């Protein structure tokens, strides 16, 4: 009885709900589990551009979905991740990291219909007006995920962006992209509309500059950029259309700690509506 020959997986990009290869046809080799390697798509600038188009197209539907619906879908992502725990462990992700990532989806899922209450409300203006502030998503967010922890870090930057209705283009950890591609499978089965999350694998230094300069990207999350000079140049590019910028976090950041509201609120716009009150 010979040992069964395993079916190996092809790891591709996740753009607009599809799983294409890089349009450049390039891939690169990474370690997959203990004994095998995998070819991972090496995204190009054009892939990044396609991802922005997908994210923009998904934006109005996702932002316009009810908060309840977005919360349900994020919770579904937690359920799917829980169900695939072993799959991530097989990729080398520690079990407690998978658990923490699952719990993070749950934490953010619950925020979808509470954030507008915590971050908005009626302002008591001195006049006969209803004055109402509500948070709205900033739009398309380009995210550089932290290199590690590959799964928890990734979930910790995606979830706070999309819970409020943003859509994201994520440059995944270059050294550990399999968690990202596998997370795409989780999201694809969690009823998340196509294009809300788009994942690029490869070299962030290749794709992110084009995202930082892209005029149809509204915010830039530099969390995973370790190179200070690169981060500065990206922030300078982002200034061209005044993207909201989240600056890099130190490598020793504790991703297991309570994330607080900051990542969500940094990607919100406050809209204030006035209307007179008359009989």
């Amino acid at each position: 009885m010979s040992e069964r020959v395993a079916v190996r997986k092809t790891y591709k990009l996740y753009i607009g709900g599809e799983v294409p290869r890089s349009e450049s046809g390039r891939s690169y080799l990474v370690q997959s589990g203990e004994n095998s390697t995998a070819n991972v798509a090496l995204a190009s600038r054009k892939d990044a551009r396609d991802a922005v188009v997908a994210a923009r197209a998904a934006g109005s539907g996702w932002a316009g979905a009810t908060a309840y619906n977005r919360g349900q879908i994020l919770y579904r992502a937690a359920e799917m991740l829980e169900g695939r725990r072993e799959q991530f462990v097989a990729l080398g992700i520690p079990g407690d990291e998978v658990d923490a990532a699952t719990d993070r989806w749950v934490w953010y899922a619950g925020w979808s219909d509470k954030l507008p209450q915590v971050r908005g409300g009626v302002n008591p203006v001195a006049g006969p007006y209803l004055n109402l502030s509500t948070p709205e998503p900033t739009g398309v967010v380009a995210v550089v995920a932290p290199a590690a922890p590959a799964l928890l870090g990734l979930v910790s930057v995606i979830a706070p962006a999309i819970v409020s209705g943003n859509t994201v283009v994520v440059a995944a950890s270059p050294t550990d992209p399999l968690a990202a591609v596998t997370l795409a499978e989780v999201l694809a089965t969690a009823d998340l509309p196509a294009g809300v999350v788009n994942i690029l694998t490869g070299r962030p230094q290749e794709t992110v500059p084009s995202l930082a300069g892209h005029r149809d990207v509204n915010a830039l999350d530099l969390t995973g950029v370790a190179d200070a000079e690169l981060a500065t140049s990206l922030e300078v590019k982002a200034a061209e259309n005044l993207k909201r910028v989240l600056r890099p976090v130190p490598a020793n950041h504790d991703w297991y700690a309570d994330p607080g509201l900051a990542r969500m609120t940094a990607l919100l716009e406050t809209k204030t509506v006035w209307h007179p009150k008359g009989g």
Partner: protein
Amino acid sequence: MFEYAPAPESRSVVRLQPAYGLFVNGEFVDPTDGDSFTSINPASEEVLAEVAAGGVGDVDRAVRAARTAYDRVWGPMPGRDRAKYLFRIARLIQERSRELAVLESLDNGKPIRESRDVDLPLVAAHFFYYAGWADKLDHAGFGPGPRPLGVAAQIIPWNFPLLMLAWKIAPALATGNTVVLKPAETTSLTALLFAEICQQADLPAGVVNIVTGAGETGRALVEHHDVDKVAFTGSTEVGKAIARAVAGTDTRLTLELGGKAANIVFDDAPVDQAVEGIVNGIFFNQGHVCCAGSRLLLQESVADQVLASLKRRMAQLRVGDPLDKNTDIGAINSAAQLARISELAAAGTAEGAQRWSPPGELPERGFWFAPTIFTGVAQAHRIAREEIFGPVLSVLTFRTPAEAVEKANNTPYGLSAGVWTEKGSRMLWLADRLRAGVVWANTFNKFDPTSPFGGYQESGYGREGGRHGLEAYLNV
């Protein structure tokens, strides 16, 4: 004819000094490496005073004073005491509001009716509002014990000199920061009078520093290594330069920049109030308003009717002496701004739009531009895309609510928008879809210290006013 006799507000309440120094560490000082320039009355071109232009060394001195005050006095001070200083300032502003209003109109060119009835009441209200927050920050929703950032560099524009000062200084001080503020070079005088008010309030030295000057002074302030926070209100172009300048640093930044707001009028609008709102939207403060309703979007079924009403109403606008209590439209703030407005208006004509202004004479001296509307404007025209920052309205039309939204959002800006319809659900549908930080429905250009203000996209980031406005000055 009912001709209103001149009704000038008295200038005697203002005692101008021939020259002003910088306000650093609680005192007026001469610049060490700076220069000086004159501030003029834009309505007459008369010289009002000589004002210091702070150099790099002066900026450094001011930042050091602010740092020292932050470390030793203002940072450690209990919130309840910071509150009392701010309440004092608020009261002094109320008590001296006529003096401040007259000086504002003299230096800026805005009508006294507006400086008296809009700017000054809002300035005082802003200090009162944030004074009350100073000892309640634990309960502001940012978690326990939110910390100030430190020294805030604040740069403000010339369109609402004192009001923008209030929007910057009041929340910064309430949250425990100290400030170095640079007023716009054409409108320094009320900031310097505010400095006197700080002295009168016995505000500890160095908590508020006013460094007058032009762009170079501002650049030195923004680029100073010991500044923790930059808050800027002004043009999108300069805002981008500042964003580039602070890139890669720990300096926090909020920007309140330009706009090209759509003011959308539906066929079921309360038409007389809509016309008032259109006029207020674009001619308030000579159109020197970042959130001005500079693109009028009229539903085609009522376009002719609304335009006729608008023209009739515009013929009632009284342009002239800013200090006359009956003036509706004052002077353009500077020769440079007048040139910019004139250039864009000329482009409007050149691109084929039809220009109209009500008949009337403009004063000979000073900087003036008649209230103007352009009809037949296309989305592609410069006057439909670029911020004019003057009393010039571009009129476009639309057919359906969806088209109105599309046209309104078709701009890199996103500061404000107006909607006029008596149908509540349509108003809310639009308000949801307009990409703008402030949406005025059946009203326009309303402001309140409790109401957050700020833009989407290239109109900047961060909010000023309300609880939201605290966040820009807290480490949260």
